[in-house]
């Protein structure tokens, strides 16, 4: 086996293959996996069914290319969102870099082995999003007799190239991100803030043109859209017919995915031209992205672990003051978060991205006269983001073997755990405050909606942080040498995020229904209905979390080994 192949095989294995200490752990893992597949499988099938309806309506109304373009772009956006830190962690923050550079391998070989690993990881995601959408589209087109061979031919290239494109953009952007982090390495807080601002600016750059191009739609246009599309004859079809004329034109503005979608739908020589144009864009990106990333890979990676070996410059000694135990524990928690750039950046993202996304997506919906859809989206976004708070997800694990030291101290475990929940909550609370401000600014909402959004999400933030800290307390991973490793391998974050879909959807669906059904009522009455619903869901969530976390904290703490 060649060295490159052996390395690639190993990296793929260590990234994708789960490891188990014993049979019990293996059984538990697969049990959880099956439960997750069953739980998520149902909404996934429902989603495919609704996509089928959407594609059918799009074919009938002549919006198929636009809708496919939007779908492909959203898939890329998700790959980008989840892939950005995965890429940076595997490529630059991985503990194995220091080891790999001592082996007789070219740094280009190490780069490609890692790049292929990341691509495969993202390809799995693409297989679950792009491919089924294509298959469903083919079936929908076939049932309407407007089948195009282009979609069949381009289905696999699309599945492969869409995530590749997103990863290439990440490869290009990771260079300035790493440069910012390294430039501010002696001031991690400033470095993290600059990185977060940079990434937020990327999101703004993505969303701004979309929002600016979103057409202003008033009620009469929606009504006429419904009338035009009433040919579908079913309520769902009518709803799509109502929505499509206002949403579909956006698809044209995602130029690259629109080219791909056109290659799938127009047929003939034109389809070939569109396909070549799309492939050409990918090729240019590939050349730029990989060349820049390859060129800088060794230098940046070595710079990351070099920082660990450098002795920090001595700082001015502050005056020492005695403080209470509670304050001392909270201070220690804040300090451990603020001193890890990676943790700080991930937390910073959690703070800054929801208000950015809520502002832009909300504005789009308001422009399209769908303020309740904007509110519903905001609810889902904030719940998903506050549930992926790494500070709380790794509350105990990030202490490393320091947690064992803490066991020897005369402190109540309840106090330690409270301080961990509190610090995680502070970051989530900032997210909620900023998101509420963004939400209030988009317009089309009244004071009751803003109040309901703020109060319910503050309650949710406390509950979800409590849930995450207790989860980690049950099974912390304290034996690590490099905090970046434990952050990188933080697969546990996926579960609270998936679970967040439940309260998220439970608020989202009635909110959207209120927007459609209660149109004749006073806006404050509708706002009150939303406020009551969202507070009720958050209250129930809080009670469920309290019930699940009614455990003997001291005993759990003592079990850490």
């Amino acid at each position, binding site marked *: *086996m060649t060295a490159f192949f*052996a390395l690639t095989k*190993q990296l793929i294995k260590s990234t994708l293959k789960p*490891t188990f200490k014993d049979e019990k752990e293996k059984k538990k893992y697969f049990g959880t996996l099956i439960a997750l597949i069953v739980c998520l499988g149902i909404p996934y099938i429902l989603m495919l069914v609704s996509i089928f309806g959407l594609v059918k309506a799009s074919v009938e109304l002549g919006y198929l290319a636009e809708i496919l373009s939007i779908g492909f772009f959203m898939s890329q956006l998700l790959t980008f969102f989840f892939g950005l830190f995965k890429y940076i962690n595997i490529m630059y923050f991985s503990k194995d870099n220091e080891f790999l550079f001592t082996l*007789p391998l070219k740094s280009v070989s190490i780069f490609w082995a890692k790049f292929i690993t990341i691509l495969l990881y993202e390809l799995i995601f693409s297989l679950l999003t792009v491919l089924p959408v294509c298959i469903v589209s083919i079936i929908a087109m076939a049932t309407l007799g407007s089948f195009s061979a282009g979609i069949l031919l381009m289905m696999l290239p699309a599945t492969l190239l869409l995530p590749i494109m997103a990863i290439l953009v990440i490869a290009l952007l990771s260079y300035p991100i790493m440069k910012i982090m390294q430039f501010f390495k002696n001031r991690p807080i400033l470095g993290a803030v600059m990185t977060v601002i940079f990434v937020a600016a990327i999101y703004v750059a993505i969303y701004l043109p979309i929002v600016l191009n979103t057409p202003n739609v008033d009620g009469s246009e929606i009504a006429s859209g419904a009338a035009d599309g009433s040919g579908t004859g079913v309520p769902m079809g009518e709803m799509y017919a109502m929505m499509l004329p206002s949403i579909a034109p956006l698809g044209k503005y995602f130029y690259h995915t629109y080219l791909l979608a056109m290659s799938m739908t127009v047929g003939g020589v034109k389809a070939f031209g569109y396909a070549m144009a799309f492939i050409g864009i990918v090729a240019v990106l590939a050349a730029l992205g990989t060349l820049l990333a390859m060129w800088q890979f060794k230098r940046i990676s070595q710079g990351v672990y070099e*920082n660990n070996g450098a002795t920090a410059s001595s700082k001015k000694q502050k005056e020492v003051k005695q403080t209470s135990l509670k304050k001392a524990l909270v201070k220690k928690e804040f300090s451990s978060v603020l001193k890890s750039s990676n943790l700080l950046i991930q937390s910073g993202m959690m703070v800054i991205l929801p208000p950015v996304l809520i502002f832009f997506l909300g504005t789009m919906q308001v422009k399209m006269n769908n303020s309740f859809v904007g509110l519903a989206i905001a609810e889902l976004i904030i719940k998903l983001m506050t549930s992926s708070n790494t500070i709380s997800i790794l509350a105990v694990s990030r202490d490393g073997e320091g947690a064992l030291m803490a066991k020897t101290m005369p402190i109540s475990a309840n106090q330690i755990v409270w301080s961990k929940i509190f610090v995680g909550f502070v970051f989530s609370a900032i997210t909620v405050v900023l998101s509420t401000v963004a939400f209030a600014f988009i317009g089309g909402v009244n004071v009751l909606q803003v109040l309901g959004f703020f109060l319910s999400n503050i309650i949710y933030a406390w509950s979800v942080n409590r849930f995450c800290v207790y989860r980690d307390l049950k099974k912390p991973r304290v034996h690590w040498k490099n905090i970046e490793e434990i952050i990188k391998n933080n697969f546990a974050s996926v579960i609270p995020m998936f679970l967040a879909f439940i309260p998220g959807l439970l608020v989202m669906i009635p909110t959207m229904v209120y927007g459609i059904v209660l149109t004749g009522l006073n806006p404050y009455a509708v706002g009150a209905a939303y406020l009551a619903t969202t507070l009720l869901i958050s209250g129930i969530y809080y009670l469920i979390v309290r019930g699940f976390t009614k455990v003997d904290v001291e005993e759990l703490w003592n079990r850490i080994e």
Partner: protein
Amino acid sequence: MNDILTITNLSKKYKGNDKYSVKDLSFQVKEGELFAFLGPNGAGKSTTIKCISGALPYSEGNIKICGHDLHESPIEAKKNIGYVPDNHFTYDTMTGSEYVNFMADIYGVGVNDRKTRADKYVELFGLTDAIGKPIGSYSHGMKQKICVIGALIHNPKLWILDEPLTGLDPQSAFNLKELMKEHCKEGNSVLFSSHIIEVVEKLCDRLAIIDKGSLIISGSMEEIRAKNEDNSLEEFFLSVTQGDVLVGDEQEEFKF
């Protein structure tokens, strides 16, 4: 005897630090030699070893391994070394045998050679029962042992070990020391760092003492003893590392 490792005026400054971690360091390790690198904590031992192994970049000086310049032909130079880091990094998801085979693939070792060597070392370090288990389940000492096996699988000309005896049980420590001697007897060389003077005194042919990134003295044990008849190596080590670093002529006086 040929030089297996030649370090000339090596200097290393970590990014963002004003001070040199290693300054103007020069020494050689010859064929068949067991060379120790002695120094207090933070002296620059690990930094030097990481530069030699290719883990850390350096901007000043030269490192040649078996005649290959580490900057100019890194692959050829690295093919000649086997490196056991102080943090004994391995992939926790691999089993011991997967790791050994992975290292053998990286260094292009044939199936028969890798099997013969792996069997020998696995038995020597008592890992027979653990070799099929994931490395994540290994103890500190077991991880150290699997790293040693991985580093020796291609029978390197230069075996580099950073603080190799930390965390090993007495039997394993003895076996490792014997293995280091055996490796040298076969015409290869060993470079290891330590701050345990007794180990260095008993084991090595030649040594270098560094402190605050600079070389204080290098030479064979006999040469150092001859220069320092009144004191033990421990007393000598303490006297030279607790005071200021010797410079200029003072340093020259201790070079052999």
